[in-house]
C-alpha cells in the first residue's frame, strides 16, 4: 500500500520547467532513492513532498487520496518529515530542548522540564541513541546530531522520512550507524526517501531508485542495479573512461619546492613538478597537503625553504607575486574561497587578471570582456549569459569558472585542491579534460585530492604526505591504493611523531591490514566533506 505518491508533478520557475512530469511513490518500510546530478530536480521534488513548493502540474496523494500540502506544517501533520543536509538545530541548547524546539511542553506557562526530559529520553531510546539529553547539541558529532533530528521526526509521528544527502557529512563508521537506524525504521514501517551522491550506498540502503535528469523522470529501477548502469541513466550517456588522463610531454622544471617548513604543519617538503606533468598529492586530512599548496601560492607564510617557479624565486606570503610568477590556486572550497557567488561569471573569470592588466588604475574592459567571453566558451561553461551570477550555476560549472580564472591568467603552474569535490560525474570528466588541456600546453599541475582513484587515475606522478612530510614519491605506474595508503599513515605507526593536528580518533591500531587502512582513508575522505 503506497503511503505517498507524486503523480506527474511539474514545477515551473520563470521560463524553465525545473521538474517535468515526475512520478514517485513512497511505500511503508521501503527506501526510495532519488538519484540525479546537481540540477536534475531532486531538491525540487522533495520540496514539493514537504510543502515548501506546490506542484504547478500533477498532484500529490497520501494513502490514495489527493491532497495539497500548502506548507511545512501541513506536511508535518501528514506525517512527512525532512532531515535536511544542513541540520535545523540550535547548538547552544540541550538535546531535549532541540527535540522540543518550538513545541516546548509547558505547565501553567512555564516549561515543564520533567515531562520534556522523560519524553526526550524515550525518543532517543527509540533510535538507540545513548546520550545525556541535557547535553548541549553542539557537543555531539554531526552523525549524532542527525540522529537527534531523526528522533525528533519520529517523536512527531512521522511515517515518511525524507533524508536529503544524510551521508554527505558522515564518516564511514557513522554511515554504518545511520544505515542500521534506517534498517530499524524500515522494520517499523517508516517509508523513506533517500538522496545521496555516493552510488555505493544505494544497494546498502535502498529498495528502488528513481533517476532524474534535467528535471525529467528517466526510470525507476531496483537498488541492486549496477553502478555503471545508474551512471548511464543519470548522465544520459556512457562514461567510458572516468579518468581520461592524456600524458603530455615532460619538459623543464616549472615548480621547485625546496625544504619548505612551517612549524606544526609542514616539515622539510621538497619536490619538483615539470612542464606537462600532473603530480598528485595524496594523504589523509591534516597531512599538510592544503598547507603545502597554500604556502606555494603565498596564501600562508612559511618559516624556511624556497619556492621557485620556472627559475624565478617567489617571495613568501605574497599572492600577487605568486600570480605574477605564473601560479594559480583552485582552492578546496569554491564557495568560500574560490568565487564571489553574487557576482557575474564574467567578473569572477576576470578576478585574477583585472589588476595585472589595468592601465593607470583603470580596468582594461575590452580586453577583459574579450578574454572572459573566450574563456567561458573554451571551458564550455553552461550558462544563459556571461552576466549571470555564478551562484546560480551548477557545482561543476562553478568549478570551471574557478579554473577559467587561471587559464585566463595563463598560469604555468596550477595548484588544485580537491578539484572535483561536489562535482557531478559528467562535469568531473570535463574538468579532467581541462587538466589535460593545461598540461598539453606545457603547464604543470599539482593536484591535492582525497579521492584516491582520482589521484591514481589523473596523475603522472604521486606524492604522498603523512604528518606534514613527504612520505612517498613514485610514478603512478608504481602506485597502488594499498601502497599510497600505507605511506599516508606511515607517521602514525611511529607513535612518537604523531602530531597535534592529525585527528587522533582516526589513528588506526598497529598491525594494519589493508582493509582497515582503506577505512581510515575513507573516513578521512568523508570527513572532509562537511
Amino acid at each position: 500500500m503506497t503511503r505517498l505518491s507524486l503523480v506527474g508533478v511539474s514545477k515551473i520557475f520563470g521560463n524553465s520547467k525545473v521538474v517535468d512530469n515526475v512520478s514517485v511513490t513512497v511505500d511503508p518500510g521501503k527506501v526510495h532513492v532519488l538519484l540525479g546530478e546537481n540540477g536534475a530536480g531532486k531538491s525540487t521534488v522533495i520540496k514539493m513532498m514537504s510543502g515548501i513548493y506546490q506542484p504547478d502540474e500533477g498532484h500529490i496523494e497520501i494513502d490514495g487520496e489527493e491532497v495539497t500540502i500548502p506548507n511545512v506544517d501541513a506536511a508535518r501533520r501528514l506525517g512527512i518529515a525532512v532531515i535536511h543536509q544542513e541540520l535545523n538545530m540550535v547548538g547552544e541548547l540541550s538535546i531535549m530542548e532541540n527535540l522540543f524546539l518550538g513545541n516546548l511542553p509547558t505547565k501553567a506557562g512555564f516549561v515543564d522540564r520533567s515531562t520534556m526530559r522523560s519524553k526526550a529520553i524515550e525518543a532517543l531510546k527509540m533510535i538507540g541513541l545513548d546520550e545525556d539529553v541535557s547535553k548541549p547539541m553542539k557537543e555531539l558529532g554531526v552523525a549524532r546530531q542527525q540522529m537527534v533530528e531523526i528522533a525528533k521526526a519520529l517523536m512527531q509521528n512521522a511515517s515518511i522520512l525524507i533524508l536529503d544527502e544524510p551521508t554527505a557529512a558522515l564518516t564511514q563508521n557513522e554511515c554504518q550507524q545511520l544505515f542500521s537506524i534506517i534498517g530499524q525504521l524500515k522494520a517499523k514501517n517508516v517509508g523513506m526517501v533517500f538522496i545521496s551522491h555516493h552510488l555505493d550506498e544505494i544497494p546498502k540502503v535502498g529498495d528502488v531508485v528513481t533517476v532524474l535528469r534535467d528535471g525529467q523522470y528517466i526510470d525507476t529501477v531496483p537498488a541492486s542495479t549496477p553502478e555503471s548502469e545508474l551512471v548511464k541513466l543519470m548522465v544520459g550517456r556512457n562514461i567510458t573512461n572516468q579518468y581520461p588522463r592524456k600524458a603530455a610531454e615532460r619538459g623543464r622544471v616549472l615548480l621547485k619546492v625546496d625544504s619548505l617548513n612551517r612549524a606544526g604543519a609542514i616539515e622539510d617538503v621538497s619536490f619538483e613538478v615539470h612542464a606537462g606533468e600532473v603530480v598528485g598529492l595524496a594523504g589523509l586530512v591534516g597531512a599538510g597537503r592544503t598547507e603545502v599548496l597554500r604556502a606555494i601560492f603565498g596564501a600562508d607564510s612559511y618559516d624556511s625553504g624556497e619556492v621557485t617557479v620556472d627559475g624565478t624565486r617567489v617571495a613568501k606570503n605574497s599572492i600577487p607575486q605568486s600570480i605574477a610568477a605564473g601560479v594559480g590556486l583552485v582552492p578546496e572550497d569554491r564557495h568560500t574561497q574560490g568565487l564571489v557567488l553574487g557576482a557575474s561569471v564574467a567578473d569572477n573569470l576576470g578576478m585574477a587578471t583585472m589588476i595585472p592588466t589595468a592601465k593607470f588604475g583603470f580596468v582594461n574592459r575590452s580586453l577583459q570582456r574579450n578574454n572572459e567571453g573566450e574563456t567561458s566558451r573554451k571551458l564550455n561553461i553552461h550558462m544563459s549569459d556571461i552576466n549571470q551570477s555564478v551562484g546560480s550555476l551548477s557545482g561543476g560549472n562553478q568549478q570551471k569558472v574557478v579554473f577559467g580564472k587561471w587559464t585566463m591568467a595563463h598560469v604555468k603552474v596550477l595548484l588544485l585542491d580537491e578539484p572535483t569535490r561536489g562535482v557531478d560525474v559528467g562535469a568531473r570528466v570535463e574538468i579532467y579534460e581541462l587538466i589535460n588541456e593545461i598540461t598539453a600546453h606545457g603547464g604543470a599541475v599539482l593536484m591535492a585530492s582525497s579521492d584516491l582513484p582520482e589521484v591514481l587515475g589523473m596523475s603522472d606522478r604521486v606524492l604522498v604526505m603523512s604528518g606534514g612530510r613527504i612520505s612517498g614519491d613514485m610514478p603512478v605506474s608504481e602506485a597502488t591504493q594499498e601502497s599510497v595508503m600505507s605511506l599516508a599513515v606511515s607517521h602514525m605507526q611511529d607513535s612518537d611523531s604523531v602530531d597535534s593536528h592529525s585527528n587522533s580518533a582516526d589513528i588506526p591500531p598497529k598491525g594494519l591490514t589493508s582493509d582497515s587502512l582503506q577505512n581510515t582513508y575513507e573516513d578521512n575522505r568523508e570527513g572532509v566533506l562537511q
Partner: protein
Amino acid sequence: MSIQTKGSTMEVNNKTFDAGQTIKHFVARNGALIGLIVLCIVLAICAPAFLTGANILNVGIQAATTAILAFGQTFVIVSAGIDLSVGATAAISSMIVAYTGANMGLPAWSTIIIGLLAGAFFGALSGMANAYLKLPSFIATLAMMSVARGLTLVISDGRPISTSGLVNFFGSTIMGVPIPIVTMIIMGIIAAVILNYTSIGRSMYAVGGNMEASRLSGISVHKTQITVFILSGIFAAVAGLVIAGRLHSAQPEAGTGYEMDAIASVVIGGASLAGGKGRISGTFVGAILLAVIRNGLNILNVSSFWQQVVIGLVIAFAVSFDTLRRKEDAH
C-alpha cells in the same frame, strides 16, 4: 544545495519580447526611482509650490550634502563595511579648513587641500584599524566618529569659525547655478567612474562579495579596505566644504547625524549591507528621495517631528521591498 533548482539546465529560450514582463522587471529593479517619480507626481498635484524652479533647486541643494556623503559611503558599503564617521569627518575637516584659514592665515586654496587631506587622513586611520587591527568597521568608525567630533570641539573651543570666500563659494549660487548641486554632480561622476571603471573600484565589489576569494585571486584586501575609507573621508571633507560654504562658517556641531542619512540613501538605492552590491545611481536616487520627502512634507506643513517618523518608515519600506525582491529572484 539550494541553488540546485536554478541549475545549469535552466535555459532562457523564451526571448520573445514581453512588455509586461519587462516593465515588471524594471519596476522591481528600480523601486526607489519609481517611488521617487510617483512621489514627485503626487507632490506636484497636492502642492503646486513643489514643482517650481526655485523649489527644485532647493531640493537639489538640500540633497547635495547627503548625496556627497552617501557617494563616499557607497564605496564602504559595497566593500561590506560601514562608515559611521562621515558626519564627524565632514565637521573636523571643515573646521580644520576654517582654523588654518582664519587662525593661521594660510592661503584659502591651501586650506582646502589641507581639509581634503584631513578627511583622507581620518579615513585612513579607520581603514587601517579595520584592515590591520581587524576592528569591525562599525566599531572602528564609531570610535572615529567620537574622536573626530571631540577634536572638532577642541580645535574650535566649541565656537564656530568663519570661513574664507573660497570656501563660501561651495555653498553659493553663481549666476543662478547652485554650486552645491554642481559639486554633487561632479562628485557623483567621480564616484561612479571609480566604482565602475577602476581596478580598485571593481576590487571593492569583489572584496565585499567574498573577501577570501578576492585575496586568493591576488586582490589586496587591506589596500582595498584602506582605500575605501580614505575615499569616504575625502568625500566627507567635500561635503564639509559645502556645509561650511552654505553657513559661511565651520560649525562644531555640523553634520551631526548625517551619517544616518548617508547610509539610508545608499541602502534605499539598492546596496546590500552584506557587501558586493550597490550603485552610485541608486545612491543618488536615495539621497534625492530623502530630500524630496523632507521638502514635500515642509511644503505640506507637516511638522519636522512627523517628518522623522515618515523618513523612518520610508527606509523600512524601501529595504524590505528590496529584500523581498531578492528573495523572489532566488526563488
